[in-house]
């Protein structure tokens, strides 16, 4: 049995998405920017996709700019928004942002602009005192993710947006993990900029979008063409954009269903693990999290060893740490939460999707406990 529980890394493409995309990879290969109708007719399909993405986010279609994915959207939001006003070039983000935000923040800092990273609390939630202390008159942009990719912990974006606005700053949120899993409404949340990526919700890889609230005039990030009203140069990724549109439409429909499913399956998984695996601890257990994500510390057993044995049984999960000389050895997110480094090396992330089944969770609960037990038996840290 193959069980894929690494949906925060990427998801399977929905059949409806693939079916919608295929014509654009074959006979409808035209360039939407062309004069002739063979190409320009495709503009209608691009606009239809834009409308679907806008509906998912509670935005207007003209506020959506298509990009190559979450990383580009984050780069564009941070670099462009801090370039609007020379008197407000500063950025405030958090220590647990995705590297697409953290490394862009580092770049902005290297240009000599003030950058601050807010701390998080032990349960993974945002430390509001720390955030407020960092915001100053020079802050032009506050960027806080809607939900963390490792822990699934949901951040208080409405509150942060209000604080940012009070300081005269814009507010960006990296919603790459949150969009499609929890309802997003840019209007009521006061969000100015928001990043999404199609492949995190059963769309294709290599396409995403940046929401830019109407009235915000940020400079373009990609230069070299007049696509997207000059906001994002580059030939349209027609198939990808159409795929993103259908994926957004499916996600909207899924979110409106009464019982999303992953929440109950996640609960079953968490309870089963706590019951059957001694030493297990759910990170952020008591705070609001995405309904598909659980990071579990299997205290006493190293995560890569567990992952290797799970992989042999067909179960795919991930860990924030890597035992390797070429990579950073443990998760910076768990470290920022103050989790002991040895315990951080025992963390495994389970991330479900709407295609995850109860049978798959049963299988994991059958296979995982003996693996953990076997490794605990030879671990000097089992009773640490």
């Amino acid at each position, binding site marked *: 049995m193959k069980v894929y529980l690494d949906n925060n890394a990427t998801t399977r493409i929905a059949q409806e998405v693939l079916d919608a995309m295929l014509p654009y990879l074959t006979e409808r290969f035209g360039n939407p920017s062309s004069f002739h109708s063979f190409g320009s007719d495709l503009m209608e399909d691009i606009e239809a996709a834009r409308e679907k993405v806008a509906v998912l986010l509670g935005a207007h279609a003209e506020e959506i700019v298509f990009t190559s994915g979450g990383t580009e959207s984050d780069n564009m939001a941070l670099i462009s928004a801090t370039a609007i006003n020379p008197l407000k070039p500063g950025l405030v983000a958090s220590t647990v942002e995705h590297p697409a935000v953290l490394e862009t923040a580092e770049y902005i800092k290297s240009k000599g602009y003030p950058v601050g990273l807010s701390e998080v609390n032990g349960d993974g939630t945002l430390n509001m005192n720390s955030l407020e202390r960092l915001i100053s008159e020079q802050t032009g942009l506050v960027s806080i993710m809607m939900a963390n990719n490792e822990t699934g912990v949901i951040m208080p974006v409405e509150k942060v947006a209000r604080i940012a606005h009070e300081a005269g700053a814009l507010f960006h949120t990296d919603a790459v993990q949150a969009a499609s899993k929890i309802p997003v409404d840019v209007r009521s949340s006061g969000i100015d900029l928001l990043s999404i990526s199609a492949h995190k919700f059963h769309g294709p890889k290599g396409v995403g979008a940046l929401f830019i609230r109407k009235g915000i005039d940020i400079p373009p990030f990609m230069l070299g063409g007049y696509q997207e009203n000059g906001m994002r140069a580059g030939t349209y990724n027609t198939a990808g954009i159409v795929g993103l549109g259908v994926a957004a439409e499916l996600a909207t429909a899924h979110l409106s269903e009464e019982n999303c499913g992953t929440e109950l399956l996640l609960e079953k998984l968490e309870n089963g693990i706590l019951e059957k695996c001694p030493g297990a601890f759910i990170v952020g257990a008591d705070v609001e999290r995405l309904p598909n994500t659980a990071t579990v510390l299997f205290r006493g057993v190293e995560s890569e060893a567990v992952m290797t044995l799970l*992989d042999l049984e067909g179960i795919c999960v991930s860990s924030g740490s890597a*035992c390797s000389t070429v990579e950073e*050895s443990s998760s910076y997110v768990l470290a920022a939460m103050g989790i002991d480094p*040895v315990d951080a090396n025992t963390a495994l992330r389970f991330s479900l999707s709407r295609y995850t089944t109860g049978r798959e969770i049963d299988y994991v609960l059958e296979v995982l406990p003996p693996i953990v037990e076997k490794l605990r038996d030879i671990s000097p840290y089992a009773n640490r």
Partner: protein
Amino acid sequence: MWKYSKKLMDHFMNPRNSGQLLNPDCHSEVGSLQCGDAMTLDIQVDDEDRIGEIRFMTFGCAAAIASASALTEIAKGKTLEEALAISNDQIVEFLGGMPEEKYHCSVMGHEALSLAVEDFRHRRDSTAEYLEDILREKPDELTAAVGDGSISIEHIHPSRVGVRLSGVDESLVISILEKELQQRTGKTVKVRVTR
């Protein structure tokens, strides 16, 4: 997933000599700061300084567990001196190779072994010192038991010593020495007579 050899996977999934010994002659604990791995070794050593029973515990990835298992297999039956010469290249070779990024996992075993040998020597030296103290201080009971006879130290091991006795009540002297050693070391040290 890392590309691991069949042999490495076998040692990971069926580790040899894992666990702990009840009364080891020496013990070590090491941790790698680089990746957070940790390992313990328990060893029993015979009178010829050869490794008899050896057990390990490891907190680490597949390569770390397999390396520890391989180390114990290679070390078994070797003298402590020979075991100290086991290199991590030898462990890697024994396991049929491993990804270069994982070489650091095989280093921990050597470190654990060096510390265990150090522990063995330390325990042996302290046992020797205690025995020498006893013979020098000659508690009344021992003086009475030895009388005109003599005692000399022949062999020292952390948990057993060999003595040469002449002209004395052997079983009485042995029980006195064992009692004194127990009191001073806090452990059971067997006393045997060599002839």
